[in-house]
C-alpha cells in the first residue's frame, strides 16, 4: 500500500493537469492574444506585432509542455506539423526557435524583444509578461 501510495504520489505531477502560461518580453506592446493569434504566431503566419518582430520559442519535441501546447493551441498533431513546416520551408519560413529548457526559454523571453514562449505556471518568474493562459489536459 505504501509502495502504491509512493508511486501514486510520484506520478501525480504527470497526471496533474497544470496551467500553462504564454509569456513575452515585457517591452512588447501586446497585452493579450487570442488562441487563434497565438496559433498564427507559432505557425509563423503572423510575424510582426505592430513593429516588433516576433520570435516564438519552442521546447524540444518530446517535451510534455510542447506536446500539450501543440495539441491545445495549435490543434495539430506532430505529423501534421512536420508536413506543415516542410511546406513552409520551401517558402523560406522556418519553425520557431527551439530551446532545450523552460529556464532557457524564460531567459530568452527576458532578453529578446518579441520573443514568445510557453512555461508552466509553477516556473513563472518576474520580468515576463503573460499574454495567454491555458489548461494542460
Amino acid at each position, binding site marked *: 500500500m505504501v509502495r502504491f501510495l509512493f508511486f501514486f504520489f510520484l506520478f501525480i505531477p504527470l497526471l496533474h493537469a497544470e496551467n500553462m502560461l504564454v509569456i513575452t518580453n515585457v517591452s512588447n506592446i501586446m497585452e493579450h492574444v487570442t488562441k487563434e493569434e497565438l496559433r498564427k504566431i507559432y505557425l509563423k503566419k503572423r510575424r510582426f506585432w505592430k513593429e516588433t518582430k516576433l*520570435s516564438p520559442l519552442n521546447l524540444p519535441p518530446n517535451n510534455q509542455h510542447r506536446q500539450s501546447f501543440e495539441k491545445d493551441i495549435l490543434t495539430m498533431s506532430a505529423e501534421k506539423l512536420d508536413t506543415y513546416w516542410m511546406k513552409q520551408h520551401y517558402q523560406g519560413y522556418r519553425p520557431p*526557435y527551439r*530551446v*532545450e529548457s523552460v529556464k532557457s526559454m524564460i531567459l*530568452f523571453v527576458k532578453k529578446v524583444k518579441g520573443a514568445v514562449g510557453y512555461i508552466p505556471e509553477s516556473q513563472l518568474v518576474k520580468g515576463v509578461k503573460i499574454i495567454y493562459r491555458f489548461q494542460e489536459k
Partner: protein
Amino acid sequence: MNWFKKIIPKTLKTKLRMALFAIGFFPFVFILIYIHNLGEEKILDDTLTIHHTQMHMIKKSIESQILSLGKELKFLASLDMMNDMIVDDVDKRIAQLLLHKKEDLALNIEMYAINTQDNIVASTTHEVKKIFGAAAALKVAIVSETSYFFKENDLYLFAKIDSNLQKDAVLGYLIMKYDLSNLSVFSVKQRGIRSLFYFPSNALKIGEMFDDEPLALQNYHNDYISEKYLVLNEQFEGILSKGYIVYVIKKSVALSFLDQFMFFVWILFILGALVIGFVSWWIGKRILKPIDTLSQTTKSIIKTQDYTTQVTLSSEGEIQELTENFNAMIRKVNNSMQLLEEENKVRLLRFVQLINIFNRLIQTQSEKECINLALDELQTLIPEQTFSFSEAYPQDNEKLKLMIYVKDFEKELSHFYGVISLSGEEVTDQEEIRFYQAIATMIMLQLDQIRLIAQTKAVSSAKSTFISHMSHELRTPLHTILSSTQYLIGYEGLSLPQQEKVATIESSADHLLGMINDILDLAQIEAGKVLVSLTEQSSDQIIILVEEIITMLDVLAEQKGSKITLENRVPQVFYVNIDMRLMKQIIINLLSNAIKFTEDGNIVFILEICGEDLCIHIKDSGVGISSKNMESLFKDFTQIPNQGSTQKKGTGLGLVISRKLASLFNAGLTLESEGEGCGTTATLRLKLLP
C-alpha cells in the same frame, strides 16, 4: 720530346688515326657537352619544378584547410543554435556543438564563443564566464575587417554570430584558435627531404630539420643551393601569407637523377671515346693497309735485293695506281740493274785489259818494242779493227787516228812521232774514243819514259866519264905545280914574303889535289870502278889495323892537344868479311874527321859486339853536330857551316865517300851526336860471320 715520338710515332697512320679520331671525337664531345648542359639544366629545372609542385600542393591543401576551417566556423556561427548566446548557453548546446566539432576535426584547435562583452559563453576548454584572452587582438581584427588574427603561435579565425531572433543584433563571435603546430601534419619527412613552415614575423619554425646543418633562413625569399642542400621557398597565400614553406632537400637525393644522368653521360663519354678511338684506329689501319703492304714489300726488296718481286694488292683508286706504278718502277729498276751489271762487267773487263796493256807497255825497253806491243795488244783486244802504225803525218781526218807525240826534254817541246790508224768500222762512241786516247796517252808516256831513261843514263855516264877524265887530266898538271912549288919552298934565294906566297900556292894546290882525289874516288865508286876484294878477317886483325892508323895520325892529334885511346871490348875472336884496304881508308877518314873537329879533347876507339854486328865506335869530345844538320851530313859536297870559329879545310866528301865505301862490303856507317858541343860518335857496323 723523343720519348713522346717513341710513344706516338710520327707516321702517316698515326696522323690519319689522330685526324679520324679528332673528326669523330670533337663533335661527339661537343654533342655530349651540349646534352650534358641541356640535361643538367633540364633535370635541375624538372627537379625544382617537381618539388615546387609538391610544395604548391601542400600549400594549397593547407590553405584549403584553413579556408575550410574558416567556412566551418562561419557555418557554425550562422547556425540558429547560436541564438543560445543570448541566454549564455544555458543549455550547453553551443559548448557541446563546439566539442563535437573539435572531435570531428581532430585537430589541435580550441573554439570559443564569446559575447559582445568579451565573455566566454561556451568553449571547448570549459572556460566559461571568463574574459576572452585575445580580446584586444580580436577588436583590432574586427576593425580592420578581417576574419583572422595571429597571437603568439596561434592563428585565430573568427566569425560573427548574428541573431536571427533579433534584427542586426550581434550576439558575439565564434572563435577558433588554430595552433600553427597543426601544420606539422603537412610537413614532409621523406628520405632526404624535409619541409619546414616558417613564419619570419615571430621566427616560428614548424617541422623537423636535418640536424647537421642549421639553415640560413634569411634567404627564404628565393630558392638557393647550399653546400649540401637544395632549399626551396614558397610563400603562403591568403590567411597564412606571412608564412613560407621551406623545402630542404639533400643534394644527393634531389640531384640523384642528375648524378645518374651525369654518370650516364660519363659512361657514354668513355664508351664513345673508346668506340671512336677503336673505329679510327681500325679505319686508319684499313686505309693504310695497302701502303703497309707496299712498305713491307719495299723492305723485303731492300733486304733480299730481289727486284723481281711484284706487289699484289686488291685495292682500287689511288692505291692501285700507286701499286701499279710501284710495280712498273720495280721492273724498270730490275732491268736497269741487269743492264748496269752487264755493262759493268764489260767495263771491268775492259779496265782489266787496259791495265794489262799498260803493264806490258811499261815493261818495254825500246820505242819500237813499245809500239809493236801496243799494236799487237790492241789487235787482240779489238779484233774488228785493224791497227797500223805510220810515221807519216796523216792527211785525212776521216777515221779515228791516234796521234802520238813525244817530248823533247831539253827543249821542252812536243813533236810528232807517228800515228796509229784504225781501219774498220767508224768509232763514234765518246767513251770508246776516250779509251783509245787513253792507250795513246799511255804509249806516249811509255815512249817519253824510254827516252827519258835513255837520256838520263847517257847524261849520268857522260858525267862520270867527264869527272874521271877531268880528275885524271887535272892531276898531272897539279903534280907538276906541287913539285915545282915544293922545290921553290926549299929554294933559298927567295925573300920571306915570296916564300910565304909560294907556300900559299903549295897548300892550295895540295888542297885542290885532295879534292880531285876525293871526287875521283866518288866518281869511281859511282861508276862502279872500285874493285872490292872481300877477305875473311878476325877482330884481332882489325885491332892491329886500328892501332896502325892511330900511330899514323897520333902526330896530328898531338898538334891539336887531343889524345887517342883504344878500348877493346870484344870478349873473343870474331870474324868479318871485309876489304881491308877500303876499311883502312874509312877508318882514316873517320879518325881524321874526329881529330879535325876536336880541340884539347879525347878520341876513343871502342870495339864491341852489338847484336849480330861488330861495332867500331870512334867517339870524340869535339864540337858535335845538331840533329838538324845530321840529316845533310851524308849528302855530296856538304860541310856543316859554323863548325867552330874557322872553316875547316876539306871537300865535304869524306863521310859520303866513307859510307859509300862501307856499303861496298855491306858495312853500315852512322853518326850520332848529343848536340852541338857535346862531341860526336861515328859507328861502323860490320856483319859478323857465323
